[in-house]
């Protein structure tokens, strides 16, 4: 067999460059940001609480290897996977509709009026109603505050794809708001 040329990578002595065990105590400070992301993903605050709790349970279930500073991106990745798993599971069983859900249908979901006083619940519901690819980048960048590179890693897409999706996601959100405004006149 012919010889294969192999490059041994830079094995970096800097601690930040080497994967390290995730410190569970570092995770507590991300609860607020993750809660916002969860709410924007699923559109309901009570579901968001469950989602965050399950995300932490999953991340803490075993030792994790991460680079320093990667915690929030990693948490978002797991959050997104938990949300998708729950959504899949929910789609194959009869839906429970709580009284709170009923109240929200028609008065919150999908309508965000940027020129009016911003109402967080309506905004998150509108984001949650976007197609998943668009929703995920807007959650990563505009809600969670990740960089484009971090967002690309978290959603498993190229940075250029993230840029395109973000533009379209924001445009759709604004168009939805315009339609809502026009229909309310």
């Amino acid at each position: 067999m012919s010889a294969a040329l192999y490059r041994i990578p830079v094995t970096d002595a800097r601690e930040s460059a080497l994967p390290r065990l995730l410190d569970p105590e570092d995770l507590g400070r991300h609860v607020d940001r993750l809660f916002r992301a969860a709410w924007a993903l699923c559109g309901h605050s009570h579901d968001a609480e469950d989602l965050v709790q399950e995300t932490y349970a999953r991340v803490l279930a075993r030792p994790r290897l991460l680079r320093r500073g990667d915690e929030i991106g990693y948490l978002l990745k797991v959050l997104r996977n938990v949300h998708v798993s729950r959504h899949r599971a929910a789609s194959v069983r009869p839906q429970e509709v709580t009284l709170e859900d009923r109240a929200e249908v028609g008065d919150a979901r999908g309508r965000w009026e940027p020129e009016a006083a911003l109402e967080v619940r309506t905004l998150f519901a509108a984001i949650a109603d976007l197609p998943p690819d668009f929703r995920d980048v807007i959650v990563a960048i505009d809600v969670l505050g990740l960089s484009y590179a971090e967002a690309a890693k978290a959603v498993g897409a190229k940075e250029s794809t993230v840029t395109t999706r973000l533009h379209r996601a924001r445009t759709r959100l604004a168009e939805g708001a315009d339609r809502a405004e026009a229909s309310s006149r």
Partner: protein
Amino acid sequence: MTQDTEHIARRIREAVEGVEAPQRLHAVVAEQTARRAPTRRRRLLGLGGGLVATAAAVVVALVLVLGSGSEPAIGEAVALAQRTPTRDAPAVDPTNPKRVEKEVGGVWFPNYDSEGDTGWRPIGSRTDDLDGRRAVTVAYKGAGGPVSYTIVDGAPLEVPKGVPWHEYARFRAAILRDDAGQRVIAWEKGGRTCIIAGKGEDVSALLEAAGQA
């Protein structure tokens, strides 16, 4: 492209920045992390300073020519693993959903989809002869692109000279990169050599996958 929508982003940021998680969620998460922390400390103590030792590794950047000896090299196994799968993806083992129905010398290939957080799905497999040894590869579809997982039968392959072993909680691994830019993790399990290689996944993800296997 996103500059003309920046005003929308600004409004979103302004709207969400005051949103805080309910106190009960903070309390639950604090309890979850506190419960986990002592376990972590015990595990770190048990490492014998392994991970700490990796932080002291010297910066090295070497180019080696491998495969010139009589024993097959890790690079040759990775090169084989990049070929197109010739068989269907193995099914999930009905007796143990954490693995798929394929093994080499008692070392099983994992089902990374079983816990839902890696999301790697097996998409095919192939078996090769590596200088008289059986080398079985399962190809997975990762979030960032294809990932190959190879188990080579026989005595463990040697890692290239000068490549350090990094000690982690459950195993030790050699971290390499091939000339195509793929990240390669090699480790031993059950006396066999296991190799994970992928271009689209970062080292942390590959190491985590290796640790789960």
